[in-house]
């Protein structure tokens, strides 16, 4: 398992709070890279992160909503895919 790219992360098997730190880093990098509105997450941007426990889903959801993102999650087998959209 490895991180796929900045917006598509794999945090399966990682324990709290590592998955939230990963998504926070990705969001911060997207803000920095935004040339049109520096400091903001680009409109339409989508982040996805895979986790394997409900605690991480809850923590990422709380983080995403606080950052102004729309958060949804989908369970596939033992894993969850959390999608955060601007």
């Amino acid at each position, binding site marked *: 398992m490895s991180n796929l790219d900045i917006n598509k992360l794999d945090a399966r*098997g990682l*324990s709290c*709070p590592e998955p*939230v730190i990963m998504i926070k880093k990705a969001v911060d990098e997207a803000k920095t890279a935004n040339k049109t509105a520096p400091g903001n997450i680009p409109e339409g941007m989508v982040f996805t992160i895979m986790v*394997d426990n*409900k605690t991480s889903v*809850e923590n990422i959801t709380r*983080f995403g909503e606080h950052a102004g993102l729309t958060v949804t999650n989908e369970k596939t087998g*033992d894993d969850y895919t959390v999608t955060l959209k601007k």
Partner: protein
Amino acid sequence: MKTSKKELIIISVFGILTGIIAVSLVFFGNPANMGFCIACFIRDTVGGLGLHSAGVVQYIRPEIIGLILGSFLLSLVRKEFAPKGGSATITRFILGFFVMVGCLVFLGCPFRMILRLSAGDLNALIGLLGFSCGIGVGVFFLKKGFSLKRSYRQPVTEGVAMPVIAIVLLVLLVTAPAFIIFSEKGPGSMHAPIILSLCAGLLVGGMAQYSRLCMVGGIRDLILFREKKLILGFGAIFVAALIGNLITGKFNLGLTNQFGVVAHFDILWNFLGMLLVGYGCVLLGGCPLRQLILAGEGNSDSAVTVLGLAVGAAFCHNFGIAATAASKSADGVENVGGVSTTGKIAVIIGLIVVTIIAIVNTFQVFKRKSEQ
């Protein structure tokens, strides 16, 4: 982070109930300010099994059994039981070992620190400062990329091992075969009735599983994400226990007047002991309570951490590492207690070892060839 009102209400109610249960356990026989102390109770249980020979702290604590089984049962009901493990097993064992050293030098785990504070013991405030500093240092490494790497799915036998051990302990407690030792004096001899302690453990274990209550997580998340959910649980336990202690007449404000309540007044070592606990627990991803709860949910990494705590407890009492509590004899002679030279050396070694673990796992000092 944005926490819903419902989540805030749930964690507050659970915190209040936990605080009330903790004070009630003391009322019904547990040692002072020890409604719950994960470190002390693991230490007592290890002593009950004869793994250390400190005669005053030997008893198989039903609260520990209840916490594991409460978490196990609720995780089954909520379909959250998931056998997982294989993430830095020996490192977790070592961290658990030194977290116990810190706890027994301070004389309590983070949970008991809050309970001691709620009874007016200002030595616990020193401990809280050290604990927060330790968490701060751990968070620094987390931000730099510290990771104990991934865990993986395990067979069910791995996941149920700790709940089965808890059931075996319960059988040993109830049947009390000759090789099990129960203290006849001292804190180990003081306990609420078995059924009450067991039910308290089951209830708190269930609530902690549901709410993810964690003493380390509260301060860590506040520093990392300005997230207040877990620290609210912390606060609710404190307020409920404070009111409970005031009602039951157990509140005694002060620093050097805490005789007979399993505490000592050595400011530096109370601070450093809890610094070691906060530091180690952040790297582990949770406090000793959280490790028990996760072990009940099938996490064998946490189960190994609990074993590290248990072996640490045995070492602490077999080698004079644990602090001595301040006491007053019947004729008024005061013994202020404190930390032995061995205990001080153990804390310093612990801080060095935890720092090495933090550095190695943050900066990937020993990267595998395939990862380079």
